[in-house]
């Protein structure tokens, strides 16, 4: 499984372990269904792709982010962990080189193979695709936080086939794409994504698409509406 992913993701490109990739994780996996990871590769300048993966997860890859020229190389979300595993960020710069950083994380089993809470409660369909979000305009960049209600089924739970969000796209008010991300079933249920877009827009059009082809859309009001405080 991993060899397949490694070949597919990295092919023959050079790989370095690089402290310039900051991966921010807590010291304990308190909840193996939702382990928070923040990746900040701004020290590398312009990047092509950011991968978030856990070596020993049955679905190693969680996020495949292509920030593009209009977004900073910064992303955060929560992932499932199935056992004690390294959690890594791999960032590919313009020269094709992959820069990798990681942390060992000790986790109880079952993050990927336990049913989502909303499946147990049975209310997942009532809230499917509900979008929440907000923009925090900073001096140069705008932080976006986006929450999507989705069971993010891994396909590893008996009688529940894989069903997950697969892309998230942010466009400006005119519909021009600002940045896009692909994701897999190892992202936590009801995922929350944090992105850092360059500059300021009057509005951010969010489109999340899942593996059954459903599209969920919403508009985050941009500058002037949110609080001017900035976290970064």
């Amino acid at each position, binding site marked *: 499984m991993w060899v397949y992913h490694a070949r597919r993701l990295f092919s023959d490109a050079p790989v370095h372990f690089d402290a310039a990739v900051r991966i921010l994780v807590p010291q304990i996996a308190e909840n193996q269904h939702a382990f928070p990871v923040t990746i900040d590769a701004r020290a590398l300048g312009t990047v092509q792709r950011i991968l978030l993966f856990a070596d020993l997860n049955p679905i190693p890859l969680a996020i495949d982010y292509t920030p593009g020229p209009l977004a900073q190389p910064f992303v955060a979300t929560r992932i499932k962990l199935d056992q004690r595993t390294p959690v890594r960020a791999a960032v590919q710069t313009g020269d094709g080189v992959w820069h990798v950083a990681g942390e060992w994380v000790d986790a109880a089993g079952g993050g990927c193979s336990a049913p989502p809470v909303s499946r147990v409660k049975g209310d997942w369909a009532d809230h499917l695709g509900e979008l929440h979000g907000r923009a925090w305009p900073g001096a140069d960049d705008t932080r976006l936080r986006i929450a999507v209600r989705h069971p993010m089924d891994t396909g590893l739970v008996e009688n529940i086939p894989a069903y997950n969000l697969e892309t998230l796209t942010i466009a400006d008010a005119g519909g021009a794409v600002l940045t896009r991300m692909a994701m897999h079933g190892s992202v936590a249920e009801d995922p929350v994504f*944090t992105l850092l877009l360059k500059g300021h827009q009057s509005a951010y059009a969010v489109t999340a698409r899942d593996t059954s082809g459903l599209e969920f859309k919403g508009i985050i009001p941009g500058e002037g509406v949110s609080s001017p405080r900035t976290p970064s």
Partner: protein
Amino acid sequence: MTLSRRTLIAGSLALPALGPLAARGETFAGTYQPKAQAIAPGVWMVRGVDAPIAFANGGAIANRAIIATDAGPVLFDPGVSLADGEAMAALALRLTGKPVARVYVSHLHPDHALGAVAFAPQIVHALPGTREDLLRDVEGFSDAMYRILADWMKGTQIAIPQGDVRAGEVTFGGRALRLLALCGHSHADLALLDTSTATLLAGDLVFHDRAPSTPHANLAAWPRALDTLAATPHRVLLPGHGPLDDKGRAIAQTRDWLRWLESALNQAADSGLTMSEAGMIAIPERFASLACARYELQRSVSHFYPALEMNVLPALKPE
């Protein structure tokens, strides 16, 4: 370099290894050696280690108390495992010359509750809410403890307290006890006042110089329980974790941490911090004496942050 499985494993080795697994030797020789300290006439405390549950400490991190009575000693919290509970039973027998006659389980958490298996079920008492909590969660706790503590847990089967505790005054073996049925740290928290010595056993409602843990906490209810404890006259207070409090500061410290935690996490969410950033916020200088502060802050982020985020992320309209 092509990233193959081998380079990946080499990469794994490049990361610092975690402690607990490395500490597990080939043969297991750990034994619990609880030490009793008299804190009032006929009352002893047994201090837990002020650290997270870990293989290195056998999970013996919760404070417990032994109270002598004519009918035999009362044990307030039996510990984390069969061997831990047995060690407490032996200690109580040594101190009082009588076998344990009553065990109170303060709340559901495994470091306090799982050692009940060392005692006859009918002498183990808890709040009805604690029994409900354990029926729901004890299997998961047991799995988690076996994973972390391995051989320390040998023979620890699931035990559910049989006796129901009701709030109020009771006399047991000639000793007057006041039982307080509270909540906040969990859905059902038992505290006990030994009336004649004014010794208050607070369970995990109070932490002292050790950051409070919040996996089942209700931050609205917890301060009300602290009000009740503060209004219960006492000479010394044994917190669930951390040193004995004979200066009347542990309740206020617990309250201060919880109030800060709630407002700091709300502020973090409202400023747009990610969940891992929220776990890295500065901890005020006044909490410098608290053990496990960063660890418990990050656990609390996991417990509360997803809900707090939803309070500050407005629903999006499609157009």
